[in-house]
């Protein structure tokens, strides 16, 4: 303000205050309630709806979600391995309804950004002052010759929890001893970065407990490294005979990296044989996780990037302070469909860090968006945002590992806080082995975490 004298400042402030009234008339107008519409009722969408209502009970909040029951993807690998009943992952929307949120079970088919309305398959139209877009992910069923969407009832992805999870479980149970359970991992970014490796661990654990010790899990990975790699390898060595990367080892789990033949580009569906430029693997159970993109409605609404950074293609770029879409200040994109920061390339030490696509971070994004919306409706300053992640992987009996991430916003950009981030210890500070109690605690914390995130989002 040093360059502006007092008189000028008063003039500016007066102009600004009237301008600010003009800029948000639809929201702040006396009498009319501000309307917030949320598309998608996963962890992110449910949290956004709840926290807008918690922040300002006078805001009219509508959540539009096709399914009446949500099934948590986190810990759904435990369903596949028989450690958990899928019912423990299911939750409805009564908690949100009790909070006065209007829950509509319908599919949003259109967003009119000029008119600020959304329309649904059921023929309804909802006006919004602020729109939260949280549709999660969709799959690209392209890139593997011989593979298409119609095959998922035979070759499940099990990367959206529900019937797909149960199908993969059934196939695992029916698999003969000595069989091969093959997991095809797409190029990142994908949701739940440690998910495929946790799955491999729990499938191996299933083999051990169900008389299938001659069986193998083979991970064909399009990437050259992966989340919590050191910790997974350590756990696999301890429990599943892990030796080294590549095929032909004595390990129950084998991992083939992208550079060494992990990039699957061909499928013979009849024999469940997947091929890369280097290897052919015939599977008994085949689990192809297709590459991801933001949910369809995000692309249809014009919120996804098509150019620039390769990793923003198909994803929604957001403003760090508020989670508002870079394409539209009245729309907030939270959860798996956004790209917050630059996507990491595992194995590339120079890569910048992006937020991983986890339920936990989706919820902190949703809380930031909710706070920004409440502030905007009430003409207040944007509160300082904080983003955090905690992601547990259960990799064996009484054996859990985790990664934490913390992000701040500095100078308008996301900043990864290294001091507040990191994976579980590989060794104690004195280099001695980590006592089993640490791993047991994290396995128990994973369950407590699940109960709390489900309740914090949906109750």
């Amino acid at each position, binding site marked *: 303000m040093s*360059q*502006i004298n007092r008189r*000028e400042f008063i003039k*500016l*402030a007066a*102009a*600004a*205050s009237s*301008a*600010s009234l003009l*800029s*948000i008339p639809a929201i702040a107008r006396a009498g009319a309630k501000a309307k917030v519409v949320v598309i998608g009722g996963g962890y992110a969408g449910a949290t956004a709806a709840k*926290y807008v209502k918690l922040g300002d009970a006078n805001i009219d909040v509508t959540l539009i979600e096709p399914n009446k029951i949500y099934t948590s993807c986190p810990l759904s690998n435990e369903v596949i391995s028989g450690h958990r009943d899928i019912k423990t992952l299911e939750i409805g929307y009564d908690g949100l309804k009790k909070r006065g949120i209007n829950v509509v079970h319908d599919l949003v088919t259109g967003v009119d950004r000029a008119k600020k309305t959304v329309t649904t398959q059921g023929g309804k139209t909802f006006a919004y002052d602020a729109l939260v877009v949280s549709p999660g992910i969709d799959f690209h069923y392209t890139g593997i010759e011989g593979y298409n969407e119609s095959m998922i009832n035979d070759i499940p992805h099990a990367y959206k929890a529900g019937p797909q999870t149960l199908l993969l479980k059934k196939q695992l149970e029916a698999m003969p001893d000595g069989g091969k359970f093959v997991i095809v991992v797409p190029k990142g970014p994908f949701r739940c970065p440690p998910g495929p490796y946790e799955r491999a661990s729990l499938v191996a654990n299933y083999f051990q407990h169900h008389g299938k010790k001659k069986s193998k899990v083979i991970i064909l990975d399009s990437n050259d490294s992966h989340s919590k790699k050191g910790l997974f390898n350590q756990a696999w060595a301890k429990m599943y005979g892990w030796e080294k990367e590549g095929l032909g080892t004595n390990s129950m789990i084998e991992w083939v990296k992208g550079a060494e033949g992990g990039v699957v580009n061909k499928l013979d569906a009849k024999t469940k044989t997947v091929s890369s430029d280097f290897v052919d693997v015939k599977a008994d159970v085949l689990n192809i996780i297709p590459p991801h993109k933001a949910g369809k409605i995000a692309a249809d609404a014009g919120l996804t990037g098509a150019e620039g950074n390769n990793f923003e293609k198909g994803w929604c770029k957001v403003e760090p*302070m508020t989670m508002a879409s870079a394409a539209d200040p009245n729309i907030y994109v939270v959860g798996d469909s956004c790209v917050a920061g630059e996507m990491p390339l595992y194995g590339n030490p120079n890569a910048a860090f992006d937020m991983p696509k986890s339920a936990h971070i989706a919820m*902190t994004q949703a*809380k930031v968006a909710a*706070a920004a919306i409440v*502030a905007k409706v009430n003409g207040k*300053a*944007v*509160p*300082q*945002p*904080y983003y*955090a992640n*905690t992601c547990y992987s259960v990799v064996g009996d009484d054996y859990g590992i985790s990664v*934490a991430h*913390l992000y*701040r*916003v*500095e*100078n*308008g950009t996301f900043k990864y*806080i*290294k*001091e*507040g*981030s*990191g994976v*579980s210890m590989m060794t*104690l*500070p004195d280099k001695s082995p980590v*006592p089993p*109690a*640490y791993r*047991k*605690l*994290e396995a*128990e*914390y994973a*369950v*407590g*975490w*699940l*109960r*709390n*995130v489900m*309740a*914090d989002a949906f*109750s």
Partner: protein
Amino acid sequence: MQKALLLSALASGLLLASSAHAELNVAGLANTCNNCHGTGGVSVGESMPSIAGLPEGYLKSIMMEWKTGKRPSANMTRLISGYTDEEIAALATHYSKLPWVPVKQKTDPKLVKIGKKVTEKCAGCHGDTGKSDDADTPSLHGQWSQYLQLEALKYRDDAFNMPNKQMVKAAKKLSDEEIKAVAEFYASQNK
């Protein structure tokens, strides 16, 4: 140019906090904790402690101990190390001002009875029922039984090298059943 910038910042109705002097937003900070510790710091997960209503001194000291490496933890040491001392102090104040909500949970009456007897030794610091008036002693009445058992495991295992030696000594004197009984007793005091 500066005028235009100022005008546009004001006119947008959004006064963005400048990063150099980012205002501490304790409610936003606490939101990151509540994912695991429950909405408003009241946990519904058996292995996760409720933190709402714990004494300010206790909350601040455990967070600072995690940050400075004095108190081992399977996970909290990592996240807390990213928070400033001011943020830790603000979080401690924030949660201490919220009401303590004892959790209603099923407990084993037989163990509760044993626990009542065993905890006579603990009453000096923790009060008869785990309700403590001391600023540095956590409330235990109505805390989750499983969480209390997991904490006891840390006190009894030398690998954790827990800083409170009095607790280490006390916890090591107890049998497995007594540990469970103590946890069940405090958990049952949910009033």
